[in-house]
């Protein structure tokens, strides 16, 4: 179990590096409401990282936007991109945002749900924070539903159905980003 405690610690350090105090407070509030959920999270999901889910046939088509980094392969406008293993929503990369940024004029919620996805290039598992972008127009383009590790909203922080727009001026869902919080195998 030491491995997973390290993981948790690394995730929390990652939060601390990249989010404001207020965000951390909000995020931990959300996470800790489900008592002791976080430490178990990567355990329950390890080994389930492969994503072969098809994109929604009703999605608006868009041309490939493949990244140039061979360690981060795939097209962030497509539902089968590896970081989207637990996305339920519309992909921000189709709306003027990107895999890790919100479209202009929207606001990124600091509080979110978390998944663990397998990167087929470096074979690592990454903890992915699915931050919703809020306050803009949700038009159904590039809708994507993958449910790796999604759970019923009894632990809301494990549920991709919840509109994760908190600490934002508007709680209107627009689209979802997939941000790397840390690699779960990176504990050596």
């Amino acid at each position, binding site marked *: 179990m030491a491995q997973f405690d390290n993981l948790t610690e690394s995730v929390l350090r990652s939060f601390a590096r990249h989010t404001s105090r207020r965000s951390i407070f*909000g995020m931990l*509030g*959300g996470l800790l*409401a*489900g*008592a002791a*959920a976080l430490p*178990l999270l990567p355990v*329950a*999901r390890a080994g*389930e990282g492969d994503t072969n*889910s098809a994109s929604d046939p*009703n999605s608006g088509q868009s041309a490939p936007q493949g990244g140039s980094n061979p360690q981060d392969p795939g097209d962030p406008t497509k539902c089968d991109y590896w970081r989207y*293993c*637990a996305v*339920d929503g519309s992909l921000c990369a189709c709306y003027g945002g990107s895999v890790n940024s919100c479209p202009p004029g929207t606001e990124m919620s600091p*509080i979110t749900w978390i998944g663990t996805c397998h990167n087929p290039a470096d074979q690592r598992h990454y903890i992915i924070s699915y931050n919703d972008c809020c*306050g*803009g*127009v949700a038009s*159904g383009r590039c*809708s994507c*539903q*993958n*449910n*790796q*590790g*999604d*759970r*019923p*909203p*009894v*632990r*809301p*922080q494990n*549920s991709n*159905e*919840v*509109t994760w*727009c*908190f600490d934002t*001026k*508007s*709680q*209107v*869902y*627009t689209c979802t980003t997939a941000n790397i919080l840390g690699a779960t195998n990176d504990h050596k």
Partner: protein
Amino acid sequence: MTAGILSAKAAAICACVAAAHAAAADFPKPLPTDIIPKVETLPAKYPTTWTFLNYASDRIELRNVGSDSREVKAQLQAHDSATLLVPEKRPELYVADTVWSRGTRGTRTDFITVYDTHTLNPIGEIVLPGAKRALIAAVEGLMAFTDDQRMAVVFNFTPASSVTVVDLVKRQVVGEVEIPGCSLVYPSGTRGFSTLCSSGTMLSVRLDANGVVAGRGESKAFNPLDTDPLFTASIVVGGVRYFPSLHGRVQPVDMRGDEVKILPDWPLVSAADQAGNWRPSGWQVVAGDEQKLLYVLMQPNAHEGTHKNPATEVWVYNTATRTRVKRLRLVRPGSSISLTHGAEPLMLVQAGERLDVYEPSGNLVRSLDLPDFRSRMQIEPLR
């Protein structure tokens, strides 16, 4: 050019006038003038072949599923995670919804609209304070009746969890109850509600006649969230609420008393069926009928992440004997299931942009269109 077109038009008029004189003999009088304005109303008691279809965050449709004319009877507006309650005691409907003063931004207002069942006109409104109503699509458990339908409880998530208590008769908010670490609301006891907690327990709250907390009780842990969590979708059959689990159990909970009774769970998948790796799957995954039969949407070859995929079969269980009595193949994979409450119940399955209407035997009767259906549907048949 203009003159040419006018001449052609004049010729057409002559031809028409001649034809009109001939046909007017068959119909000596023209059709009567219509009355303006005219607006339809609905019957005092809706037939049990009608059902509400809650298109998450879009609209709520009242459909006649018992007729091949496939009629839409009416629509109610629904914006974000709108939730419908249909009382049996008063000629009213309740829809909880959320809007912003400038469309996607501005001031948020959470409110319950009270509709007259006969006219569908809004006849009242209850504003929910704090802009904290949980926004989780059209999921069961966002709002529930209690106190013999005199009160309702609304689940809030900010992400702190609480419940707003509403007096539907007085049309006012009467209080708020903190439920830290717990989610969603289900009716329980004579005047109370229960909620599913992240520790695997169920918390039950008793209210007094004024909607104030009169007592709390927490069950033992029975919901193994790490290994085989329960769906939050459920159905009451014979007074007992049944929750299927992601890996294929069903958990009965008797919520009629002031303290809930966690009854023994039992498997939905027998040893003989283990090879197919069948599991419950979909959105509104479970239904029930007056014969105490349980209908569960089932999917083969299930694995991590497939629990919301459309199901290919419906497995039907006798809740008394805990055995499967029927296995129905769907004509199209379905995500939400429900049964109408009439003398001859119909099984309704939302399957993509279709609502397939079956006899409980599994015979497809008709298939209704669900144009512009996008995400999740909650099917709410009428009693």
